[in-house]
């Protein structure tokens, strides 16, 4: 017999005729294509296509129930002269920068505290995460009640402590409303930052701290020269996510203030919902939400290049 001389492919064809279908079945690229199909299908039809459509809509005067005409950059020109739009941009930037900075500070502090050795550590760590698990809208409603103009528990407590004599109109006053929504956002975001940074802290080898202590480093020096540099990559990723999701926040605002009082808490996301869905101006709403894209790209770029630079400095390879 000449079996030995046969290639594996030919040996196979002796058992079964190797059709082109068989070849396709074993071709990596085709197989990859079929395996990717469901995921790519969803992402193309419900993410990539709408993303493009949204940008297109922002150049039309589409209204609910009426197909729009291409009107060039008119939507953007209107927005340029729209003081409410600029107010929402300012609010969004203010909201994102203040909330993210405080979330980072408290999150890092909490992570450092949780990293200490103490009893009931495991229970404590799982309790901390609960604000992150509970649906945002539902906890926002709890805050709505806590900040109620008449029955706020905060006003009540402050009055009984003799610090104030009148109820604070938390969600009815522009400054207070801003403080309240930012507080609620921080409250919800801290657990995520803390637990993720804690995960990072645990990768730092204890021997580094011991060596530093023996060399006489203070706890601040240990943090500054060991913890912080080793934690930077995780910080970059966590803060990118945090900034991104704070920037595009919708539900917290919608449940607590719906953008009020006098648009003081309108973010770009809530304003675009109001213009597009409630007022029916789809084109204008799409222009407002498309205006978020440059900010988001900038946030991603900053963290991306930040990471790359660090890697390059540390002389690490990709992968």
């Amino acid at each position, binding site marked *: 017999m000449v079996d030995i001389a046969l290639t594996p492919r030919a040996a196979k064809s002796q058992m079964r005729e190797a059709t082109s279908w068989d070849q396709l079945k074993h071709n*990596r*690229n085709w*197989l*990859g294509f079929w*395996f*990717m*199909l*469901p*995921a790519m*299908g*969803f*992402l193309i039809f419900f*993410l990539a*296509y*709408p993303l493009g*459509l949204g940008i297109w*809509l922002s150049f039309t005067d589409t209204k609910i129930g009426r197909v729009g005409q291409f009107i060039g950059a008119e939507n953007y020109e209107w927005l340029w002269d729209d003081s409410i739009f600029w107010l929402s941009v300012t609010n969004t930037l203010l909201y994102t920068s203040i909330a993210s900075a405080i979330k980072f500070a408290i999150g890092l502090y909490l992570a450092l505290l949780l990293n200490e*050795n103490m009893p009931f*550590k495991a229970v404590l*760590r799982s309790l901390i995460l*609960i604000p992150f*698990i509970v*649906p945002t809208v*539902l*906890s926002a*409603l*709890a805050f709505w*009640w*806590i900040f*109620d103009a008449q*029955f706020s*528990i905060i006003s009540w407590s402050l009055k009984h402590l003799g610090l104030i004599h009148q109820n604070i109109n938390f969600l009815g006053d522009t400054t207070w409303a801003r403080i309240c929504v930012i507080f609620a956002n921080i*409250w919800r975001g801290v657990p*995520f930052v803390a637990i993720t940074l*804690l*995960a*990072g*802290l*645990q*990768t730092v080898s*204890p021997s580094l*701290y011991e060596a530093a202590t023996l060399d006489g480093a203070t706890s601040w020096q240990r943090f500054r020269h060991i913890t912080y540099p080793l934690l930077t990559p995780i910080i970059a*990723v*966590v803060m990118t996510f945090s900034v*991104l999701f704070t920037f*595009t926040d*919708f*539900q917290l605002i*919608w449940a607590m203030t719906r953008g009020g009082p006098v648009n003081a808490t309108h973010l770009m*996301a809530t304003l675009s*919902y109001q213009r*597009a869905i409630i007022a029916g101006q*789809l084109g204008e709403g*799409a222009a407002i*939400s498309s205006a978020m*894209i440059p900010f988001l790209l900038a946030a991603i770029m900053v963290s991306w290049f930040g*990471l*790359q630079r660090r*890697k390059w400095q540390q002389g690490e390879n*990709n992968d």
Partner: protein
Amino acid sequence: MTDLPASKVDLKSILTTSARSDSSEGMSYLQSVPRRIVTLYLPLTIIVVVLLFPFYWMALTSVKPDDQLIDLDTYSPFWTWNPTFKHFYKLLFESQYPHWLWNTMYVAVCATVLSIIASVLAAYAIVRLRYKGASLVGGLIFLSYLVPPSILFIPLATVVYQYGLFDSPLALILTYPTILIPFSTWLLMGYFKTIPFELEECALIDGASRWQILIKIVLPLAIPGLISAFIFCFTLCWNEFIYALTFLQSTQNKTVPVAIVNEFVDGDVYRWGSLMAGALAGSLPLVILYAFFVEHYVSAMTGAVKE
């Protein structure tokens, strides 16, 4: 995304008190007890109290009788001696709340299952088949995680309308996977990478098809990853608000978060009790699920950072 140096994050140790999980363990004897109280326990207590207070407040409000809710002078607002389940009764038997709960559950389970199936296939293909352009597609999938729903809801609303899905749960079941797939694919890729390639090689030599390998070898070994992905996707679905608010119109089709915000909020002075009962009842399923799978949840959450 690039591989971070932190890829060695030991996730389990975050929630278990294993021996090496404490970087400060070796030095904690250096601190005196009063010092530890001031620098550790006091700030920790304050933070935990602030983080958990809204839930206490929610729970207390939901069992307080109405007259005590608005009479802050006679009764201490921080406690009640006459708890009532009237608000929950109203919620369960005199409103459409059970229906909304069912909607949320139905949408969340369907969208999660669809996403997990798609993600398993995609993650396996990216990690193991290594077809042409696999890493590029992997990167694109990750990027799609960074596209927020608040940019997409307007065009998606028109798409959903065109496809005739408006005001149907199917609209949510089909759109939620765009939020879930990127994350769970990324998470599962990490799990698949840890499965020894030799196992698959042996099976390939024995004549198993890729499909058989996936079902019989890879999936059973990746069960912890599947649970993590499932829990996290389910939580995200339950939490989703803007799509549900935009794509659903009729009261009975709504999901819990949207229904509570839209249907319970009216001019009624006595709404707080039912509102808080509704918020509490809507949070409980997730909290219970979380209590059982804390470890998986945390590993899913930090999964994005891990990779």
